[in-house]
């Protein structure tokens, strides 16, 4: 164990019947390529690790380390895509060659490519698809119209299948169009393995409810970003999502009220 990493500001206690354990983990140092220094309360499923309350502190440290691993693993989950079928609907074969190779690297064994709207629809009618990646410039109607037709068809077997829009056009109009036609997410080209991995993880581990209205069917568009799957964004300026303990003097309630009054 890394000597710089300190654990254990509180002994873990099982919450009877809840199947969860609350633990405070005080961490500092570097593990698995991630710098961390924080005290945080975690709830961990008690069958995820084992410990003996009251045992020697070394054992306690080990247990807490295991718990820390569980928490870190939950933030950086492994993905299992073997056996899933992917449809890449993109008119550019070189673009799909890159995405195909990334998916193959992730363990996908079944990736089907379509060059037109019609090809894609035919594949959907003939085969079971688990995730679609659609380029908006798809010939004969466009990718967004293709997505809308799937979402709006109550008889479509793929109506709730996750759909990612892959596009180099990141103008607001394109993002809004993708959202409103029922796509789960937009990924900007050129695609990198890390961006694709994060989006796949996001879709699988943070599923959203579907919403059906008179003119929309698709994932809930009231999409609150609650953090990056890895716990931290890719940009240097991105803050961690967790609310930390206050580090200095805070505003009084009067100050907050006066600020809000100005805003109103």
């Amino acid at each position: 164990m890394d000597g710089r990493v300190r654990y254990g500001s509180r002994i873990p206690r099982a919450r009877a019947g809840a199947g969860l354990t609350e633990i405070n983990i005080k961490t500092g140092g570097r593990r698995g390529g991630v710098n961390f220094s924080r005290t945080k309360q975690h709830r961990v499923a008690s069958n995820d690790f084992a410990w003996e309350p009251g045992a020697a502190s070394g054992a306690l440290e080990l247990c807490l380390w295991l718990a820390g691993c569980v928490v870190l693993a939950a933030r950086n989950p492994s993905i299992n895509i073997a056996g899933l079928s992917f449809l890449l609907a993109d008119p550019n074969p070189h673009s799909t060659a890159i995405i195909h190779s990334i998916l193959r690297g992730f363990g996908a064994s079944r990736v089907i490519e379509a060059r037109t709207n019609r090809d894609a629809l035919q594949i959907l009618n003939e085969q079971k698809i688990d995730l679609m990646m659609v380029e908006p410039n798809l010939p004969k109607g466009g990718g967004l119209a293709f997505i809308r037709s799937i979402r709006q068809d109550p008889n479509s077997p793929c109506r709730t299948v996750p759909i990612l829009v892959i596009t180099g056009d990141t103008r607001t109009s394109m993002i809004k169009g993708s959202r409103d036609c029922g796509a789960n997410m937009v990924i900007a080209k050129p695609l990198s393995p890390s961006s694709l991995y994060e989006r796949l993880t996001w879709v699988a581990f943070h599923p959203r409810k579907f919403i059906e209205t008179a003119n929309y069917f698709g994932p809930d568009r009231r999409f609150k970003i609650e953090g990056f799957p890895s716990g931290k964004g890719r940009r240097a300026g991105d803050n961690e999502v967790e609310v930390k303990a206050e580090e200095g003097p805070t505003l009084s309630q009067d100050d907050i009220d006066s600020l809000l009054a100005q805003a109103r």
Partner: protein
Amino acid sequence: MTTNARPTFREIEVDDDFGRTMRTPGGITRSAAMARAGSDIDRVRPQVSRYVKDECARLKKALRSAQAGAQPDAALVAQAYLASQNLRDVADTAGFPLVGLIARNLCVIFEAVDAAQIDYPAAVVDCHTEALGLALSRRYEGKRPKELPELLAGLSQIVEIARAAAAQAAISGTAAG
């Protein structure tokens, strides 16, 4: 009497095969996935590199032909825009980050021209055509934009001018409308 009729909607919980399978233990970790995807991309890189070079040649030809007449040929401009989009999508991954950046700039210019209905900026496009030739030369191949700030600063400036002109035209259009 007014009625506050709320629009009807239905929320549906979805737990599809994709999510269930993805969450199954025993998959691939992030670091292993990155390493394997990287080596799989390396396998297709030579083929995509050839394509990038061919597409650059097509783009340059379309840009030069588009400006041959007194008025830019709309079909050739559309062809150049499509080639720019294709390059924007794959050049970075194929190991041509400079080409990717120039293609992105060209896309911004074409979109600005289209959105704001401004005149075809022949001089701006010419600068990018020259830069494209430079980016493909042995001296600059594989160089990252960060390594050539002085070369790219000029290109970024003229793209910003095109973008600003488009924004201005859009505002004027909105005000007039």
